[in-house]
Structure formats: structure tokens, C-alpha cells
């Protein structure tokens, strides 16, 4: 169903791009799902999505910073 060549090209690209950038769409998706399961109104869902994105991004950012810090000392 999917051609092999585009997949192989993306595989080469994936090795060059830092992995954290592949997590950003997942962060947005998780924020959207968390918000949408707590609200019904689209405007409320939008606001809650931003709220959750800030929270999740902040928590993951702290974890990433801690891992990088420990990696410097290791």
C-alpha cells in the first residue's frame, strides 16, 4: 500500500532530526484528547487543549532537562 522509497527516504531523514521533534505532534494529540474527554463545547475544548499542552509540555520539558543534566555529569 505504501511505497518503499518514500519510507526509506524518511528513515534517512529521521536519523538526522532530533527525536524530540517527533514528539511534538504527539504532545498536541494528547492535549487534544485530554481536553476533548473533559468538555463538550468546542471553544472549551480549544482552551483546555492549550491548558493541557502547557502542562504536558512543561512536565516533559522538566524531565528532558533533568535527563540532559544527568547526562552531562555521567
Amino acid at each position, binding site marked *: *500500500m*505504501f511505497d*518503499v522509497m518514500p519510507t526509506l527516504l524518511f*528513515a534517512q531523514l*529521521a536519523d538526522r532530526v532530533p*527525536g524530540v521533534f517527533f514528539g511534538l*505532534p504527539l504532545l498536541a494529540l494528547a492535549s487534544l*484528547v485530554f481536553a476533548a474527554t473533559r468538555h*463538550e463545547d468546542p471553544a472549551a*475544548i480549544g482552551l483546555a487543549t492549550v491548558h493541557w499542552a502547557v502542562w504536558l509540555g512543561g512536565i516533559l520539558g522538566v524531565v528532558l532537562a533533568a535527563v540532559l543534566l544527568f547526562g552531562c555529569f555521567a
Partner: protein
Amino acid sequence: MEIRGKRPRAGWSFQAARRCRRLRASVVHGPWVVSVGRQDSAPPRFVAISPDDGSTIDLRNPALAAVLSWLVPGLGQLYQRRTTKGGLFMGGLLTALIVGLWLGDGRVVYASWRPGETRLAFLGQAGIGAVAVPAVLQSLRLAGPARQTYFASGWFAPPLNQGQFVSAAYAERVLATEPSLERKAFADRPPFKQCTIDQLSVWHERLGRSFDIGTLYTVLAGMLNLLVVYDAWAGPLRETPDAKSKQAKKQAGEASGEQTTDGAAGGGQPAATQT
């Protein structure tokens, strides 16, 4: 189970008793508010309360909606005529799933419970039935007497181990879909063929990090779909009592602040507090 309303007392008029029966016509049963109906023959309606405006959300058949959402993310919400949420869930989760499958060349979703090669990621991917069911079927058929899979492309099939026996037709199919494999990857063992390579290593070598990224995307899509299934079954998640009391205190504080301001200005209406 909490029953709203009171029992009719002896001596009540017919009108009062009828009003009481209407009050008793809804019960809080688990996560739902079940409307029993004014007549005994009417089927119960499962509804949820919207946390935004307090309106009722008709959940129709919650169990069917949950199964539909498990099969395809958002389909249960569309069945309940909650089109905005259904579209959001379907668009977001299906996109993540399809992107993950594309990144992994269709190889990242498979079910394997062989000792030492248990696919733990499948536990997360099983949150979406549209890929979990084919993966289980493919794995069972490959391990069965047929020694081949249902789908011609080999999608959702577990990787072959070194020494594993497969049918000749499946071996030809694998050679056709894996450009890096040679004929010597399968040894003749009539009526079957024996695999001489570790197919999972071949996948990792060919796809590199995109195999792991595809796995991550599909696992997260499956795990988030569990929240979608709960939303289809029980409606929006309700706030905890602590959150509600904090919100009530905040609104009371704002109202008293407004009342103080209005009083200082020489006029104003009494503030309404939320209970």
C-alpha cells in the same frame, strides 16, 4: 444508586402523586443519569451532563458506542451524534495511527507472545480494534497449521524467527515484499520453507529509527483511544468534588468582591452563589 425525588405520602392528591412520580423518573446509575420514562413500557435513556453548560447528552446505547469507538476512534461519538468530538477524535487518532504505520512500513503493529519475543507494544496498540483484530488474526494463522497469513501484503504479521517454518507461498510473499532478502533466506523443507534469518533485525536495519517512532505513534494512539472509549461509554469526565469546591469558593470570592465594589459605588444586586 441515588434516587431523586421522594416517595408519595399517604393522603396526597392525585396531582401531587403524579408530580412525585415524574421526579422519581430519573435515577443516577453509575456514570449516567438514566431517565426511566413516564411509562413503564418506555425504554430507559442513558444521558450524561455536559460540564460546560449543564445540558444533557444523549448517549443512546453506551455499550455499542464504546465498542464502535474501540474499533474506529470517534465512531462511537458519531453514533451518538456528537459530531464535533467524533470528528476530532477520528481525525487526530487515525492520523497518528496512519502516520505510525507509514513510518514503520506497516510492520510496527503485530501481536507476538513467543517466549523472549513478546511484543509489549501491542498492549498499547490494542486500544484500537481496527489494527488489533487483524494483528491477532494474522499471528494466529501464521502460528497455525496453514503457516501463512490472511493478508497478501503481510501487514500486521509478526516477524519470522530464525528456524521458523512457513508455507512456500508465504515465503515467496516475504521475498517479494522485502527487497533486501535473498533466496537463501528460506531453506527448502518440503512441504514448508524454513526461515534462516531474523526478520525483525532486517526491519530495524532497513527502517532505522523510524521503526521505533512508528511504534511510538501507534502505541500512543491506542492508549489515548481508551479515553475516547470511556467518553463514548459515560460521557465527559466529571470534575472531582475537590475541583468543584475550589471552583465554588473561587466564584464566591469573585462574587463577594463584586458585591463589595457595588456596595462602595452605592448600588448593586445581591450576588448569586453556586451550590
